[in-house]
């Protein structure tokens, strides 16, 4: 998978964007640049560092004043607590991680299965008011989840989808389909239509031509797009906390948030759970890093 995503990078949206700062040159400028970037990196990375430290500190070191950066005793107890319940057996947190994996995985597969053919159709066929349709599809992403969570909640209550993994899967898929369509349309646009034309002249139907020729060439793009969708579903918090409540349905973000509060907060556990939660995202983000940069600078989609 890592290899194929890198292939995607070569044809993907990131292509041809030189780091803009380089163009201006100048020594003083580059010193300033380094200083600013260092400050920014420290500010951004400190919480992460602190999270990791906290996760391997014993509880009394966590509360130590002044705070200890080095020389504390390293423990893995918090990580054990993430997965194993105090009395033995699986912990509630580990169940929520499993839920997260299921919900994110299934919703991503769903979004991909629906979005890729749609992207292909938008790329290849002349559709009435294509631009308007595409804009409408994109516009469903304009609204922050929190704006529509109440109506969704009411709809879900009617439909009996409250507090179910299926409900989360559906809403995440609904959010990821537009993204998949836009992202994949860019990839499909780059596969010459001639391959399909040639295949059709060779005796295949249009769908077979898509399946046998275009799809294999899209695999790297699909992988990259799916990773984005996966990260979105994995990280999603608002819908998860509003639409689910029971421990065996909850995904990790609300479950971790739920650890905070009450009379005492086990910060070591919170930090360890957060580390475990962040790991897959870091791995995936690494896989699609070039696309991420393009996404930040341009918006992840073109045209």
């Amino acid at each position, binding site marked *: 998978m890592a290899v194929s995503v890198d292939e995607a990078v070569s044809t993907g949206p990131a292509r041809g964007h030189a780091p803009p700062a380089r163009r201006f040159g100048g020594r003083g400028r580059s010193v300033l640049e380094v200083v600013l970037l260092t400050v920014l990196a420290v500010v951004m990375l400190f919480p992460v560092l602190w999270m990791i430290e906290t996760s391997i500190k014993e509880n009394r070191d966590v509360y130590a004043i002044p705070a200890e950066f080095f020389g504390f005793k390293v423990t893995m107890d918090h990580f054990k607590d993430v997965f194993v319940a105090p009395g033995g057996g699986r912990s509630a947190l580990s169940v929520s991680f499993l839920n997260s994996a299921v919900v994110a995985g299934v919703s991503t597969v769903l979004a991909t299965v629906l979005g890729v053919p749609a992207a292909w159709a938008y790329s290849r066929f002349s559709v009435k008011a294509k631009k308007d349709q595409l804009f409408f599809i994109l516009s469903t992403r304009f609204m922050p989840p929190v704006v529509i969570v109440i109506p969704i909640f009411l709809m879900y209550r009617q439909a009996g989808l409250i507090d179910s993994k299926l409900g989360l899967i559906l809403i995440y898929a609904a959010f990821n389909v537009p993204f998949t369509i836009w992202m994949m349309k860019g990839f499909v646009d780059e596969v*010459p239509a*001639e391959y399909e*034309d*040639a295949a*059709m*002249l*060779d005796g295949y*139907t249009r769908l077979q031509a898509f399946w046998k*020729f275009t799809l294999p060439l899209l695999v790297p793009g699909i992988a990259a797009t799916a990773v984005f969708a996966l990260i979105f579903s994995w990280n999603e918090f608002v819908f998860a906390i509003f639409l689910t409540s029971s421990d065996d349905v909850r995904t990790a973000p609300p479950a971790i948030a739920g650890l905070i509060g009450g009379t005492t907060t086990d910060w070591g556990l919170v930090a360890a759970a957060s580390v475990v939660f962040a790991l897959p995202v870091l791995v995936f983000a690494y896989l699609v890093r070039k696309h991420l940069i393009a996404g930040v600078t341009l918006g992840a989609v073109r045209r």
Partner: protein
Amino acid sequence: MAGIEVTALHKRYPDGTVAVDHVDLSIGDGELFVMLGPSGCGKTTTLRAIAGLERQTTGDIHIGETLVNDLPPAERDIAMVFQFYALYPHLKTRDNLAFPLRAEGLPKPEVHERVNEAARLMRLGPLLDRRPRQLSGGEQQRVALARALVRRPRAFLMDEPLTNLDAELRADMRTEIKHLQGELGATMVYVTHDQVEAMSLGHRIAILNKGRVEQIGTPLEVYDRPASLFCAAFIGSPPMNLIEVEVADGKLRSAGGLGLTPPPGLPRDRRLVAGIRPEALEVTAPGAEGSIPARVVSAEWLGDEIIYVVDHDGQRDVRVRMPPTIRFAADAKVGLRHTGGAPAVYDVSTEELVA
């Protein structure tokens, strides 16, 4: 093999572009038919309509006796060679060739045999186990041709198959295509915007302009008597000199006084333009018999010939093709005379050949 009949073809794309306005073609069985025209004149669109990749807005297409308007490409039994991307990038040459045959569901031994035969014809033996990106442009085109050949389709459509090759390779491939076409007795529609290619390949040539057929004829007809001002200005390099002429006392004269042999049947009272090929003119010493005074503006030495650009009274930039042995300096005072037979004459208002 089968002939192809295109009747009143009209194609308007959904965005409103009229790519093909009105095209009638009648392509014989076993004919190598060339469609020639400038970029954007609708060649590819016409070809794609014949292949079934594009649905015409109106008009009929017959392949053999069959009306194919509503047949999908797969059922038209046609092979097409595209300008670019002719090969499946993820398949080896061998599999690229075998692909259309497998699609037809032919048994393995026969697939094998036909692939080997096509590979032998196009001399692809050593390339069979490479992927397209490991092949040079010329090799890729040969594979693309072979891929079209294995099918034994009813007709071949070629969309500028040689444009991305260098000149030498192009000449080689041209010979190869012509040879193969004759050998197989294949019906072939060949699209190009290179007139040399058109002239050297085509049994007949159709010249297209803005989605319409300007002329259909053998290479010789097209060269000798372009049917319209557009064709006159398009064919030949350099193309015909278009010189305003008038008829007086049974003589045809240019505005600058150049005497021409009048063709029979000249209309009266019309503004006329004569199309004179550069080789039907001659640069002479000043005052030579039958010549009018002129001045050399520039000369282009092409090795085996010289193209002189001359001005004479009332007419600028007349191009004259001369053998390389006859030399005049730039700016020299010279004579200019017409040596060929009667020129093609066009009506300025209709832009069509009138005599």
